[in-house]
């Protein structure tokens, strides 16, 4: 892989008509040739498009999470746990798409110096995992209730008399500025917590993976994951709750009132309210909403990834799918016993094939730790990307509502075209002009700028990003990168190959990671976002950039899954293993090459996809 098959990051040109796009994003995210040293660093690093988190170009506001994890992951590696060979992950942006690169510790002496520090610091976390994890959960729930309680009030013509009588000493304008800051701060804080355990979880997992791969060179990654994956994972709860509600409807004999997907959830609920059993069900439904419907319909990283709570038709539609399955007499429960049994057998059999007592001891040590830390790896997403984010986006909409009222933006959903610091500036403009009783400058500036940015964004969307730029390394040492993004030499080679072929209509075979075993043939359905999943027909193979827990119910309908991005721990891979359905993940460009209606064969054992043309 020494000879670069990827363009230099400095060679990528602006898409015509988007010139000046750089001002939409933080200045330090730009590739630059101004300084020789920085240019060399950028040219020699390998930057891959983080399409796992960002299947679409970045909105200027939504980049907040990228900055948040840029800081959080990197600081835990570099400054807190002192991971001996790995520093943080660096970020850039090209034409609206994020590119990242892991930064290694290159000086061997420095690595040695970091070892005892890491042992002490990480050791403390591993030893006190359960206690610290309980504490983590409390912290997370704490900031979630804080953000839920955050009031974003309108600016009144005249402050209430209570301001005077209580001697408050501040105004609603100040409160708005303060609460906006608080909102942003809570978001950043949430992402600090997000990475408190994650890297240690991956470090443990990767070590177990390495040991297993040495002992059993052919072992598929998914088998290793199966040995450590939690059974009772919180991420499955929302889906389980829907199943419960479906069963309750059958039990109460009210399933006929749910109708088809054309019937709006409001009509279903109001109809149910007319009977005693219906009311019982509605109570259960309402009780489930908090927190279980705080599930994003996307990755949770984008503002447009609405949650089930934002669009109750989504969980309602899923309940209808489960009602249908129940009517056919099918078991809709996750096959927990089977999963547990398979897991037990895998652990026992692999262990029994080790040849020495020493190896059995190492296996037990590493398996034990991985099993301890893995539930966090699986569970944190519910708290952060789903629950917290869902609340966060709506609070931001309240801020945007005030900006709309003051004509700073034309509509609420325009706010995402501004960065968080631009919003802060605009709020200053807004509150000072409100305070002064003059007209703000914002209405003259932002709507026009937003119109331009919308055009730029659309052009970003129309031009798919290159998978990677820069110089591919001989090896990738940063373990988290490998686990999370599935970036290995193999996948890079596959991406490079695709790039060489050029014409996606001529590709007959795509390679990815064997995400979940099994072979299946069928008709492909390309769904670029959760809004497209309505088009899926029974027995089709889902082809998507990536999937999230809110896609869960459709896994009952399909025969297999293919994703562009994601390693063995991606949502699609986890869920497919659960359902015993084949999956190939991290293919790079499946959604570009495969078209809906194509007949394809997917081999989840080998990670290959064959297209019949």
């Amino acid at each position, binding site marked *: 892989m020494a000879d670069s098959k990827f363009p230099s990051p400095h060679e990528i040109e602006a898409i015509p008509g988007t010139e000046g796009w750089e001002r939409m994003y933080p200045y330090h995210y730009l590739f630059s040739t101004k300084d020789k040293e920085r240019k060399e660093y950028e040219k020699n690093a390998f930057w891959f498009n983080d399409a796992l988190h960002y299947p679409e170009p970045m909105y200027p506001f939504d980049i907040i999470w990228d900055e948040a994890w840029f800081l959080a992951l990197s600081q835990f590696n570099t400054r807190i746990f002192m991971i001996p060979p790995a520093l943080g992950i660096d970020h850039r942006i090209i034409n609206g798409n994020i590119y990242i690169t892991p930064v290694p510790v290159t000086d061997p002496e420095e690595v040695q110096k970091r070892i005892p520090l890491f042992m002490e610091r990480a050791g403390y976390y591993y030893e006190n995992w359960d206690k610290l994890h309980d504490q983590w959960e409390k912290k997370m729930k704490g900031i979630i209730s804080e953000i839920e309680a955050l009031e974003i009030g309108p600016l009144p013509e005249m402050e209430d008399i209570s301001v005077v009588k209580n001697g408050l000493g501040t105004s609603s304008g100040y409160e708005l500025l303060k609460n906006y800051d608080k909102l942003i701060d809570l978001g950043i804080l949430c992402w600090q917590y997000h990475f408190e355990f994650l890297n240690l979880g991956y470090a443990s997992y990767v070590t177990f993976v390495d040991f297993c791969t040495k002992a059993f060179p052919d072992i598929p990654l998914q088998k290793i994951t199966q040995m450590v994956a939690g059974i009772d994972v919180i991420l499955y709860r929302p889906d389980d709750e829907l199943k419960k509600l479906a069963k309750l409807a059958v039990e109460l004999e009210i399933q006929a009132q749910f109708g088809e997907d054309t019937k709006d959830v409001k009509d279903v609920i109001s109809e149910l309210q007319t009977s005693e059993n219906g009311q019982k069900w509605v109570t259960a439904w309402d009780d489930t909403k908090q927190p279980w419907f705080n599930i994003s319909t996307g990755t949770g990283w984008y503002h447009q990834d609405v949650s089930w709570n934002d669009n109750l038709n989504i969980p309602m539609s899923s309940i209808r799918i489960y009602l249908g399955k129940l009517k056919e007499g099918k078991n809709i429960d996750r096959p927990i016993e089977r999963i547990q049994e398979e897991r037990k057998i895998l652990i026992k059999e692999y262990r029994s*094939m080790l040849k020495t007592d020493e190896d059995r001891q190492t296996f037990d040590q590493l398996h034990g730790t991985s099993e301890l830390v893995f539930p966090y790896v699986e569970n944190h997403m519910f708290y952060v990307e789903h629950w917290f984010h869902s609340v966060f986006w709506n609070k931001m909409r309240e801020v945007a509502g005030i900006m709309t009222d003051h004509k700073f933006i034309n509509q609420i959903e325009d706010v995402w075209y501004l960065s968080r610091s631009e919003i802060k500036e605009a709020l200053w403009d807004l509150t000072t002009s409100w305070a002064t009783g003059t007209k703000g400058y914002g209405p003259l500036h932002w709507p026009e700028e937003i119109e331009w940015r919308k055009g730029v964004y659309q052009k970003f969307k129309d031009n798919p990003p290159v998978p990677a730029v820069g110089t591919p390394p001989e090896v990738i040492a940063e373990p988290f990168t490998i686990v999370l993004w599935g970036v290995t030499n193999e996948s890079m080679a596959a991406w490079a190959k695709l790039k060489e072929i050029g014409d996606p209509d001529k590709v007959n075979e795509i390679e990815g990671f064997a995400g979940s075993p099994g072979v299946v043939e069928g008709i492909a359905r390309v769904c670029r976002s959760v809004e497209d999943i309505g088009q899926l027909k029974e027995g089709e193979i889902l082809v998507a950039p990536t999937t999230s827990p809110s896609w869960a119910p459709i896994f009952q309908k399909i025969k297999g899954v293919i994703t562009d991005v994601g390693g063995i721990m991606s949502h699609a891979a986890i869920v497919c293993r659960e359902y015993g359905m084949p999956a190939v993940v991290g293919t790079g460009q499946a959604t570009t090459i495969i078209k809906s209606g194509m007949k394809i064969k997917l081999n989840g054992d*080998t990670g290959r996809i064959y297209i019949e043309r």
Partner: protein
Amino acid sequence: MEKRYDYVLWFEECDLESVSLVGGKNASLGELLNADIPVPPGFAITTKAYSLFLEQNNLKDEIKTLLKQVKSDDVESGEKTSKAIRELIESAHIHDDLQDYICEFYRRLSKRCHVPAVPVAVRSSATAEDLPGASFAGQQDTFLWIRGVDSMLNHIKKCWSSLFTARAIYYRQKMGFVHDKVEISVGIQKMANAWTAGVMFTINPATGDPASIAIDANWGFGESVVSGECTPDNFIINKITNDITKKSIGHKTVLYTRDPENHCVVKQDVPSERADTQCVVDADAIQLAKVGKQIEKHYGRPMDIEWAIDKDTPGKAKILILQSRPETVWSEKKVEPIAKPRASALEHICAGLVAGRKVN
């Protein structure tokens, strides 16, 4: 006449207890079948049948007399005697009662295999490997693609007479073994008429992964795979979960098959439309791997196995196991811990991080 059990036994009826009656090779075939390992079907002609044959033809005394002519310092005398005894045995008549038993079993075997006058392998099966005469016989005489009762009976006699090769005679004399105490059994076994065949290792020979089964397969008989004359299809199957973890389809250019006229094995070009076609369907490869696991369990060690999928048996693919021997390359490596033992998982994690993760 005694019961047929004294003279002919299905392989299924043989086990290690019956070595003295059916010889080591037949007994072990019985053991494999009883462990549900599908070796080609067949039957054993017992040592008692051999004794009866000698008795009914009054050959014992004649052989004794002839053997007296062997002089230990005269090689020629041994050769001459051997030739005379072997001619004597091979030209003698197997009496009808014994012949009936054998031929009835052959007829039933043909029926079992759905092939009229099924081609068989006729081979001697020594009663004890440490008996030198027997071991010579056991090693030397295997006759393949024997078809029809007359030919079979003739070859049975050839196996019997193999006890009296010059080498065997000299060896017994030198070691002081009594010639007429030496006995021999014969096995009659269906020839695998391979549609597809190859080899299987119950450890991945390329990586040494003990949790993998590796299968190489080509059209026709296994010779093309064993000799390395073709690029076979290759399957890696996970022993625990029985799924195919890797598969590559070879470009297969040559195959070995049986010439239908003279029953000899011939080499042919693979028809072009089959050259790149997978020669074992996934389900059969998995089934084969399951058999591999049983064989490994039976012998308690990684094995190197020759197998075939028989085309005579109607209905679903019939897997036949032709040979199994211990795997030697990986099994004989010195066993050392994979990872240096460490006091805690954390130490392993730290060491692992420092070592980095070399992808490829």
